C-alpha cells in the first residue's frame, strides 16, 4: 500500500497551490489540455465506431481465425506503448506500408499531426472497449436477441433496442476506461506523432517536457491528470466497488 500511496502523497505535497491556477492556464498547458481533450475524445469515438462491431463479432459469431483476431485486439493491452508507436510508424509513417501510398495519393500524413495522435491513442485504448463490451455480450443470454429477431427485429434493430440497453453500464464503463487510457497515452504518441506544441503535444507529453524545464508546471499538469483519473474512478465506482459489495 505504501508503494502505491507514497508517490501520490509526494505529488500532492509538491503541488504549488498558489500558482496552480496560473500554471494550468499558461498557453502551453491550455494548448496541451485542449489537444488532449480533442484527441482523447476523438480516439474514444473512433474506438466505439470500430471496436463495438468487432466486440460483437467476437462475442456473437464464429469465424475462422477468430482466436487470432482476439489475440490481435488485446495485444496493445500488453504491448509496450513505445513498440506500438514504432509499429504505427512503420505502417503509417511517411515511408510506411500504408503511410506512403496515403501520402503520395491523398496527401494524408499521420506522423507529426494531430490525426497521428488520435491514431496512436486509438491503437492503445481501443482494446479496453473491446474487452469490456465483449465480456458484457458474452454474459448476456443470446436468446434475448433470438426473441427479438422472432418478433421481427433485424440485426441492427435488435442491437439498438435490446442488446445495447442490456449492456449499457458495461458500454459506459468501457468508454470511460478507453477515454482515460487515451488521455494518458504517452509512449505510442511521442514515438509516432512526435512532440509538437499545439499539434501533437498532449498533456502527458507536456508533463514530461515541463519536468526538464519548469518542474512546477509539470506537477500542476500531473495533478490535473490525477484529478481526471480519480473522477473516472469515482464515476465507475457504482460499477466496481458496488460489485465488490454485492
Amino acid at each position, binding site marked *: 500500500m505504501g508503494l502505491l500511496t507514497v508517490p501520490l502523497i509526494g505529488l500532492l505535497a509538491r503541488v504549488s497551490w498558489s500558482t496552480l491556477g496560473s500554471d494550468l492556464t499558461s498557453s502551453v498547458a491550455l494548448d496541451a489540455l485542449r489537444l488532449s481533450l480533442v484527441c482523447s475524445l476523438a480516439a474514444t469515438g473512433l474506438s466505439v465506431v470500430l471496436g463495438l462491431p468487432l466486440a460483437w463479432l467476437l462475442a456473437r459469431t464464429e469465424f475462422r481465425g477468430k482466436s487470432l483476431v482476439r489475440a490481435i485486439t488485446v495485444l496493445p493491452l500488453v504491448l509496450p506503448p513505445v513498440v506500438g508507436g514504432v509499429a504505427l510508424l512503420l505502417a503509417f509513417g511517411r515511408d510506411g506500408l500504408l503511410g506512403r501510398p496515403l501520402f503520395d495519393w491523398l496527401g494524408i500524413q499521420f506522423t507529426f499531426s494531430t490525426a497521428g495522435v488520435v491514431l496512436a491513442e486509438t491503437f492503445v485504448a481501443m482494446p479496453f472497449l473491446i474487452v469490456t463490451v465483449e465480456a458484457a455480450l458474452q454474459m448476456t443470454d443470446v*436468446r*434475448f436477441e*433470438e*426473441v*427479438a*429477431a*422472432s418478433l*421481427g*427485429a433485424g440485426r441492427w434493430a435488435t442491437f439498438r433496442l435490446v442488446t445495447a440497453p442490456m449492456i449499457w453500464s458495461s458500454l459506459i464503463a468501457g468508454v470511460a476506461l478507453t477515454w482515460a487510457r487515451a488521455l494518458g497515452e504517452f509512449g505510442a504518441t511521442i514515438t509516432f506523432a512526435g512532440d509538437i506544441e499545439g499539434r501533437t503535444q498532449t498533456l502527458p507529453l507536456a508533463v514530461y517536457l515541463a519536468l526538464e524545464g519548469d518542474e512546477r508546471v509539470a506537477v500542476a499538469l500531473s495533478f490535473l491528470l490525477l484529478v481526471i483519473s480519480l473522477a473516472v474512478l469515482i464515476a465507475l465506482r457504482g460499477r466496481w466497488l458496488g460489485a465488490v459489495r454485492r
Partner: protein
Amino acid sequence: MTLSAEVEVRFDGFHEEVALDVSDGEVVAVLGPNGAGKTTLLRALAGVRPLTGGRIVLDDLVLDDPARGILVPPEQRSCGLVFQEHLLFPHLDALANVAFGPRRRGASKSEAAAVSREWLERLDVAEVAHQRPRSLSGGQSQRVALARALATGPRLLLLDEPMAALDVTQRSTVRRLLRDHVAESGASCVLVTHDPLDAAALSDTIVIVDAGRAIQRGTPADVARRPASPWVARLMGVNHLRGRVRGPRFDLGAGLAFPCTGVPEGERWAVLAARAVSVTSDGADEGLADGPADGPVVGWSTRVVSVQPTGDRVLLGLEYPPGLSADVPPDRPDGGRWTEGMAVWASIDPSDLDLYAPRSV
C-alpha cells in the same frame, strides 16, 4: 398441414435428424432428456440455427432449404418464442415488451400499445402493464412472455419448457392459458418439455426425441400405453416390465411370474401404473397378500431403494423388478413410515398388466 419440417442439423459432433408435422391449432410436444436436441429443433424452426439438411415449410412457404440455398431469417418468419426463463427485455416494462413485436412489424406506437394492452388483458396481467420484468412474479412474467409471443399473431408458436420454472398452481393455470390461446389463435405449436404431464395436458401428439432422433410418436395415451423402450416408459412416468410369455404365464425371471391368458408366446413387455402396485411391510401382511381377498393377486418380497414424496402420496422405488415404482399413501398400512432399504412385500393384480409385443426396431 401448416408446418412440415425435416430438420437436419450438424454441429460440433452433434447430429440431429427429426421430422415434424404440425397442423393448424395442433400442439405437438417434443419430449426427451436434456441434450436430446429438443431446443436445437426449436432454434432451427425459429431460424436462429440454420439447417444443414432437410427443409422447413410453413404454410407452403419454404423457410429453410439448404439444398436450394433458401434461408428466411428469423425476423421474417412468423414464429412466437416462449422460454422457461421468460426472457422479457429487462429495460422495458410489460406493455413495451408486448408492443415490441407489433412495433417491429410496422404498427404505429398507439396501435401497438392498444394491441398489447388487449393481450395483457386477455392473459389477465393488465395490472402489471407498467411494471418492469424484475418486479413480476414467475407466473406474471410467463403470461407477459406469452402475450408478447402471441401479439404478432404468429403462425408457429415455439414453447421451450414454458412451465418448468413455475410452481404447481401457476403451472396448471398457464397450461390452461396455453391450451385456450393456442387453439384460439389457430397457430401450430411445438412444445418442448421433459415433463410428461405437460405433454399429456397440452399436446395432441408426442414426439419422443433422444440423441437427435425421434424414437417414438403418437398421442400421449398411446405413447404411455405402448412405450417403445423402457426409457420412454420411464420418461412417460409409467412402470415398464420386460419378460417372456410361456404358456399361461408372463415370466419376468428370477422366480417372478404372473398368470396371463390368450397371449402368444415370446418376448412381451408390459406397462403398469405406479398406483397399481401395492406395497406392505414384509411379513406383517404376508397373509393378506397370499389371501384370496381380491382374486389372484401376485406378490413377492423385495426392498425399497428410494422414497420420493409427491405431495399427498409417496413414490417408492423397488429393488425388484429393477426400476419398478409404486405410488402409495405416505403412511404404511401398519402405521409406520417408508424408509430406504426396508424389506417389503409388493403385489399387483395381473389383470392390471397391459402386455404388448416389443416393436422390432
